[in-house]
Each structure stands twice: as structure tokens, then as C-alpha cells.
């Protein structure tokens, strides 16, 4: 008997009992749909985390001062004041495989324009900051090395600051007062929007590093040094070179701890990816359980169907159907439930995922892998849970089956 013949018989049988077939399929539809929707949410979370880490700058190493310690009392991380601009220059000059080095200082100040004021973070940076943070200047210009050398009182402001202090007028060329000292605005940054951590990345005022250190904050150290490594493969190597260099420069004895920390965003990325993969797996497996329940539903209905159609099986056997013919007929019936349920489930799941991202505020990412996987799973479930009822049907004795009322 031809395979296509078996499929035709199966579909005829399913159509003969439409409501029951649909209800049986519903278990698979919900199962597959749930797997796809849940996994797409998990993948969405993962993508969001990844882009937010990448937006901090890819291939980044961040050197920050360690905690200060005097007489056994240890201060908070970053309270140490030994990280200097010289260290940053030394890293730039002595270590290979580095694209940019960007030392920064930062502090909160009130910024005033006329009768408008705004509290924001003022960062002292070098021109590399623009590149390392992938910022763009919307109008005007950015801080130059000249500004750095002569500690010019110039500032570049973010969109949020600009709109709060200058509303609609172009702030470039105007003056603001930071900590009661006038600064000339030379540029406005292009909007970067909110970071995934919920931070407004446009709420920022940027001044030359030297100006920030000496004129504004009155400090000689830097708060952090961001380093962009040219080759992601070399991250670890560069990190250990920086550590060695800074220990030398800070004259740290080999038995003492570092007075700085070098953080690696790749490892943070890895941890986050691991976490979100776990979340995805968890969501997916919870949904997979409902797929399993759907499979048991198929088995249940197929058992009923076999009992109900005992006589039909008897007739078919009397007319020459073999064990394999009957087995195929019922197996294909349950696989067809799995296949059609799977297809509808995929459509339903993708629609649910899109609806969640549209109305629920989650990012969802629909990928091919979970679709194929859950489809394969639903077909497999149809097959697996169909075997027992199909075997039961195929093993029926034709005489008993014909006599069955």
C-alpha cells in the first residue's frame, strides 16, 4: 500500500471527527506555541542584555582604582587616588594591540543657564572618549587635544541637558555655569537614548579631562581608564600586560594586592549570556511540559479511536490489510495531528511573540532553531504516543474485531 494512501485515509478519518481532532490538536498547538513564545522572550532578554553590554563599547577593558587603605581601614572601591593620567599615557605608549585609551573623571554638578538649572554628571574626558563610546556630535565640535593642553573652559552637552537648559534654541556658542564658573558650549551630542539599564545616556556634560581635574574637581587622579583592545582574542593578554605595567608603576611588592582593578566586559558578557540562556531554557522547558501533556492527549484520543473503530479494523483486516497497513494508518493519523498541530502552533506562537513585543513591552526574538525544534518535537510526540494505540489496533484479531459491536 502506498504511503500517500495511508495519509489520505488518516486525513479522511480526522475529518470525520472534526471537533475531536481539533481538540486533540489544541494540546499540541498550545504546547508548540508556548515553547516558541517563551523561547522568543528568553532570546529577547538575551539580545537586550548583549546589546546593552556591547553599547558600553565592545572589547573594553576598564581600569579603576582600588580601595584606599590606611592603618588597616579600607575605603570603598575607587577611593584610592593612585591612578593618574600618566598611567593612562603609559598604557597607551607601552602596550600593543590597543586602539584607544580614554581616561575619565566624573562628578555631579549643578549646571546653570540664566534662570534654568539642571543637576547632571560632568565628565572630564580626552578626545578618544568619542570613539570609545561610539558617540557622535550632532552640532558643533568635540573636545580637542588643544583644549586638553590648555585646560580650556569648554563643554559638550548631551541632548537632555541641552533641552533642559536651552529648550529650543541651539546651545552651541552659548555659555553655561558649572559650579559657578562659565563654560562655553562647543557641541551637542547626538541622542543615544536610554541605556538598557534605564540610564539616560543623553544626561551628560563633557569637559576636557584636565579642565575637569584641575579647574572643576581639584583632583590629580582619574576615576577610570577605558581601553579598547583591537583584537577580542587578545583581551586576556592585554589585561595581564596592563596589570603588570600598573604594578610596576605603582611599585607594588609582589606579596601585596593590586591598588587598581581591571574589569573585562567580555567576562561580564559571558556571565550575562549564560544567565539569559538559563532563563531561556527554563521558560522553554516549562512550555515543553505542556507539549508533553498535549502528546498524552493524542494518545488518549487515539486509544478511544482504536476501540471505537474496532469493527472497521476487522473489516480492513478481512479484506487483506496487514499488521503494517493498520499500524501505518493509525500512526500516520497521530503524526498528522502532530504535524498540523505543530504548524498551527508555530503560527500561533510567532503571533503571540509579536504581540508580546508590541503590547507587553518585552523584546522578543523569533529564531528558526526553536521553531524547528518544537515542530520536530511535536511530530515526534505524535509518533511516540501513536505507537501504542496503533500497535493495539494492528494486533487485533480479525474475527474478534468483526464480531465487535
Amino acid at each position: 500500500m502506498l504511503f500517500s494512501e495511508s495519509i489520505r485515509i488518516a486525513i479522511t478519518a480526522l475529518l470525520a471527527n472534526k471537533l475531536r481532532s481539533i481538540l486533540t490538536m489544541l494540546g499540541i498547538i498550545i504546547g508548540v506555541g508556548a515553547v516558541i513564545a517563551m523561547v522568543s522572550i528568553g532570546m529577547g532578554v538575551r539580545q537586550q542584555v548583549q546589546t546593552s553590554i556591547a553599547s558600553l563599547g565592545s572589547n573594553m577593558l576598564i581600569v579603576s582604582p582600588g580601595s584606599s587603605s590606611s592603618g588597616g581601614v579600607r575605603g570603598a572601591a575607587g577611593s584610592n587616588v593612585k591612578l593618574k593620567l600618566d598611567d593612562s599615557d603609559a598604557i597607551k605608549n607601552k602596550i600593543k594591540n590597543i586602539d584607544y585609551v580614554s581616561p575619565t573623571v566624573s562628578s555631579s554638578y549643578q549646571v546653570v543657564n540664566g534662570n534654568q538649572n539642571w543637576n547632571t554628571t560632568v565628565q572630564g574626558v580626552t578626545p578618544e572618549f568619542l570613539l570609545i563610546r561610539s558617540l557622535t556630535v550632532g552640532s558643533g565640535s568635540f573636545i580637542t587635544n588643544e583644549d586638553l593642553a590648555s585646560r580650556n573652559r569648554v563643554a559638550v552637552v548631551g541632548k537632555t541637558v541641552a533641552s533642559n537648559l536651552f529648550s529650543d534654541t541651539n546651545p552651541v556658542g552659548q555659555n553655561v555655569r558649572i559650579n559657578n564658573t562659565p563654560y562655553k558650549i562647543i557641541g551637542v551630542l547626538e541622542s543615544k537614548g536610554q541605556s538598557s539599564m534605564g540610564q539616560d545616556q543623553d544626561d551628560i556634560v563633557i569637559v576636557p579631562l584636565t579642565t575637569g581635574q584641575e579647574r572643576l574637581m581639584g583632583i590629580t587622579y582619574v576615576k577610570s581608564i577605558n581601553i579598547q583592545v583591537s583584537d577580542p582574542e587578545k583581551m586576556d593578554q592585554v589585561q595581564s600586560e596592563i596589570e603588570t605595567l600598573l604594578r610596576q608603576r605603582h611599585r607594588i611588592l609582589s606579596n601585596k594586592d593590586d591598588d587598581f582593578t581591571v574589569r573585562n566586559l567580555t567576562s561580564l558578557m559571558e556571565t550575562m549570556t549564560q544567565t539569559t540562556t538559563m532563563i531561556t531554557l527554563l521558560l522553554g522547558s516549562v512550555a515543553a511540559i505542556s507539549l508533553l501533556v498535549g502528546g498524552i492527549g493524542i494518545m488518549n484520543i487515539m486509544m478511544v479511536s482504536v476501540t471505537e473503530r474496532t469493527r472497521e479494523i476487522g473489516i480492513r483486516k478481512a479484506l487483506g490489510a496487514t499488521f503494517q497497513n493498520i499500524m501505518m494508518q493509525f500512526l500516520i493519523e497521530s503524526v498528522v495531528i502532530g504535524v498540523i498541530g505543530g504548524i498551527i502552533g508555530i503560527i500561533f506562537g510567532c503571533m503571540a511573540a509579536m504581540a508580546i513585543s508590541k503590547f507587553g513591552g518585552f523584546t522578543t526574538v523569533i529564531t528558526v532553531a526553536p521553531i524547528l525544534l518544537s515542530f520536530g518535537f511535536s511530530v515526534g510526540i505524535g509518533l511516540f504516543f501513536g505507537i501504542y494505540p496503533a500497535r493495539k489496533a494492528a494486533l487485533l484479531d480479525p474475527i474478534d474485531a468483526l464480531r465487535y459491536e
Partner: protein
Amino acid sequence: MTIHLSGIKKIYQIGDQTVAALDGIDLHIKKGEFSALMGPSGSGKSTLMNILGCLDRPTFGSYQLDGEEVAKLGDDELAVTRNKKIGFVFQNFNLLSRISAWENVALPLVYAGVPKKERLEKAAYFLDAVGLGSRRDHQPNELSGGQRQRVAIARALVNDPRIIMADEPTGNLDTKSSKEIMEIFRKLHDEGKTIILVTHEPEIATYASRQLLVRDGKITRDVGKGVVMDVV
């Protein structure tokens, strides 16, 4: 010799009792013979029918069908034998209720592996032959008892079997339909089909050229045409 039974026994185990439903049957049926198998209920005629129809295997003995020993065949081989060599007509028609008369008739050809087009052509031919060509798209429940039985006969004939097994084919029919059905069997007999008819109605058995009486698992009488046997 089409059918050759020798020393056929069918023994059932009921609890710790053994019951011999068939107790040593020797039977030869020639090609083209129209035999009627008679006997009261419990005589073993249904069991004999099942064995003759390759639906069941004897416990002991030899059954040669067309020179092939079938007593020891496996389930699937029996199924193939039924498909090729035997056409069944049952008392309660045993048509599939959800498909048309046409598809019902074509069903044995599905299992014979015949392509669809040829299947439907053959089925249409045999439906015409039993006078139901115009009703081939009707489902069984849209047909009368006599019509259903004619569909069943068409189905029994479609794969061109050597033997037609008819188990009380008129049992559920009125007198007029019964007559029509028996006329079809007479015609088939004239065309050279081997027919085995199970019945307990003496007037139906008179259509046959040979009458066999089964009693207590044995064939007790074997007579020719024209004798009206009293079953009980």
C-alpha cells in the same frame, strides 16, 4: 482441487477444559463448486468458515488452498491470501460507513497495491455488474439492505478472487432482496466462481450444488443438489 482440508481440528482452551470446535474435518471442494455449509448454532460451522476464509488457523490438520498449505501461515501471509484469493460477504454487510459505496468496493485493491485510477475503474465495473452503477457515490447508510449487500458482493469480487465466502448473506434481508442476492450468487456460480455459503435456511441452501451439514465439529452429511436438508 481448490480446497483440500484433511484432519482439521480446532481446539479451544476454556478455563481448564478443552473444547473441540472442529473435530477432524476432511473436505474437498472443487473449483467452481457452489457449496452450502449448514448446521445449527454451536455446531462449529462459523469456526470452519473462519478457517476456510483464512481468518483463523486450525490447531491441527492441513489446509491446502490452490495447492498452497495455509494452515501454518503467519498473520500477514494470511492477510495477503485473503486479499488475493478470497472475497467475503457478511450477514451484516460490514461496509465502512464513512466512505462511499465506490470507495468501499475499491478497498481490497488498496491493500493489493493497485493504483488509484485502476482501482476506481474496477470498482465502478463491479458496481455496474451488481446493478448499482448509479448509486456509487452514496454512503452505505443511504442504501437499502439489499443494496448494501450488493455493494458487499461487488467488493468481494473486485480483486478477482477464486473463492467467495458468504456468511449468512441473506440473514438480514427481506425475502425479495434475498432472492435478488441469491440470483447474483447463482450467476457467479455460472461464471465459474467457487462459492461457499453459510446458512441455516434450507431454501437458501437449495441454490447450492452441494450441501454440507456440520454437527458437533464434524461434517455429518454431504449431499448433492435437490435434497432439502433439515438442519435441526
